[in-house]
């Protein structure tokens, strides 16, 4: 296995620059997820690593080797595509063997590798079937099998689960995680689904408009987003963001001053965005909490939890709360309690997180 290093990588299509000099180091055996909205450059970045797109500027190394002008086949990477890219005329075994046949691996060896991989992926009974005769999940497994059989240095995944339904996606997510633990392969995974990013990644790279916004572990990004974009992108539902102003005693939103557990005296008077995670509020007052009056619009029961859609001034807010099997009591909610330690403040102008002392 090997590490991957991107240094000041730029991608231009004609005069249009779509990736603006990104830096990223993926350690050996690490599972890194590139996440961001459509058009943020995450797939283009992955394709540059694969060699499917030329690198306009910057330097790419895999296992310490300069790769910019190395052909895809010589980079020792394997890629799993969004639409699986299975050859419709070949059966499962032949699909998985394709890369090995191209590399002239002896037949007996191919047979053994296919059998072993099929066993890992639970495809042994489907080896004679063609892709058209498989379910979405099975096709996805074949696509992964095709990557695994090559024993590449780096696995690249380009939104591999986006064509699956929600249930299957959850199942396949767990399978990918298990597989990564078992194979210990360096992996770069692209998705626009923040749940996939949070559950799979050792580290998440949040991209926006061709640049990296933040790199960190899932919990680092969840708890300490560097700006409103990352805060709004990670978490489901996303972080509530209310415009306000820093005061001597806290952050004022509307007529309410939300208490904070840090001293922001030096920032008094500054316009801010107050970030409150939906799951961080409570329905009962507690130590260090501030009551926030809301006007409840809608209760969405999810089973063990419920989403409260509410209005606060001009802002639409969403809160998440446990139901304990009951939702009737939620319809009368007119106040939620915001804990001082879990409020994030962002500069209203730049969107960047404000720490104590500015």
């Amino acid at each position, binding site marked *: 296995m090997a590490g991957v290093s991107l240094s000041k990588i730029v991608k231009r299509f004609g005069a249009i620059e779509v990736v603006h000099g990104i830096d990223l180091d993926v350690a050996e055996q690490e599972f890194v997820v590139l996440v961001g909205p459509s058009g943020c450059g995450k797939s283009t970045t992955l394709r540059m690593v*694969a*060699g*499917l797109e030329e690198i306009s500027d910057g330097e790419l190394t895999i296992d310490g080797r300069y790769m910019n002008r190395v052909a*895809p*086949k010589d980079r020792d*990477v*394997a*890629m799993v*595509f*969004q*639409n699986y*890219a299975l*050859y*419709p*005329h*070949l059966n499962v075994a032949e699909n998985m063997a*394709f*890369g090995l046949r*191209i*590399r002239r691996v002896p037949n007996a060896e191919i047979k053994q590798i296919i059998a072993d991989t099929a066993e890992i992926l639970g495809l042994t009974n489907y080896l004679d079937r063609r892709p058209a005769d498989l379910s979405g999940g099975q096709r996805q497994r074949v696509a992964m099998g*095709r990557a695994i059989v*090559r024993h590449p240095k780096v696995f690249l995944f380009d939104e591999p689960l986006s064509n699956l339904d929600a249930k299957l996606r959850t199942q396949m997510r767990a399978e990918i995680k298990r597989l990564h633990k078992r194979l210990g392969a360096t992996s770069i995974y692209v998705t626009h689904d923040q749940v996939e990013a949070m559950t799979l990644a050792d580290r998440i790279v949040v991209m926006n408009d061709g640049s990296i916004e933040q790199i960190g572990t899932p919990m680092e990004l969840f708890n300490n987003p560097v700006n409103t974009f990352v805060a709004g992108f990670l978490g489901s539902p996303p972080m509530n963001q209310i415009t306000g102003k820093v005061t001597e005693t806290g952050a004022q939103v509307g007529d309410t001053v939300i208490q904070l557990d840090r001293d922001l005296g030096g920032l008094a008077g500054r316009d801010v965005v107050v970030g409150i995670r939906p799951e961080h509020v409570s329905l009962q007052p507690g130590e260090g909490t501030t009551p926030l009056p809301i006007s409840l619009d809608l209760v969405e029961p999810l089973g063990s939890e419920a989403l409260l859609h509410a209005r606060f001034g001009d802002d639409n807010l969403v809160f998440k709360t446990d139901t304990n099997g009951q939702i009737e009591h939620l319809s009368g909610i007119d106040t939620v309690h915001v804990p001082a330690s879990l409020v994030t403040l962002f500069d209203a102008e730049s969107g960047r997180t404000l720490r104590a002392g500015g």
Partner: protein
Amino acid sequence: MAPRNTRWTRAVDHLKREWQIYLMLLPTIVWFIVFLYKPMYGLQIAFKDYSIFRGVANSPWVGLEHFETLFSNDQFFRAVYNTIQISALNLLFGFPAPIILALMFNEILHATYKKTAQTIVYLPHFISSVIIAGIVITAFSPTAGIVNTLLGWLGIDPIYFLTKPEWFRPIFVGTGIWQEAGFGSIVFLAAIAGVNPSLYESAVVDGANRWQMMWRITIPCILPTILIMLIIRIGNIMEVSFELVILLYQPATYSTADVVNTWVYRQGLQSGQYDLAAAAGLFNAVVAFVLVMAANSLSRRFSRTSLW
């Protein structure tokens, strides 16, 4: 009481809802009726002693007499043999030509060069067969033709290509390829354009070169289209390009050039034996029908691809 949801009421409802689509279909249906189904009424003259003055309905039945005449006629058998020979050569050389061209076009990366090359090879399709025949006759002329001029440079005496029976089939098949291969490649280019690009990207990552991608991805992926076109071609195996044969052949080359359609034309229109010509035409149609059914069922059995 609610109306009964019968098949008839469902059909009427469907027609009311989708009448615009059926209206668009109408000209095609009319065309089929007028030009393909109505003439079938006249097929009965293949079993009659047809007279223009008595008309189709009043001509007396003669059973299979015309078929007996046909099958005892050496010239008819020669025409059938020539038809099959020319069609077989067309199938062997003419059928793969557009596929090869399409694969070659697909490998051209320079957009302008590709468009120019495509335009050049599509052009002959739009030229009338009469002009095509004129070009061929001129090119193979023993006095001023470019072919004989080139042969002359190599010290070879002029050959009277179009009067020699052994040269008719190669010239005819070659002309057909020149005229139609380019235009015929469009359908295969369309099929190639439909191949999922990520199959190629995946193959590139796996280490395949362009040659391997062509053999292992492009050709297998367009195989259903190739098979459909082959079935259609087999259905037309008895239909050799009638105009071009008429324009290029002459009595000296009848032994290899006279095909069923030209024989029917001479017997039916020039000699006035419409009933015998109808019998020959019916024979042609039955053979084509059997062939296309057989090809379709074989294709369905072995490749899961079929016309119906």
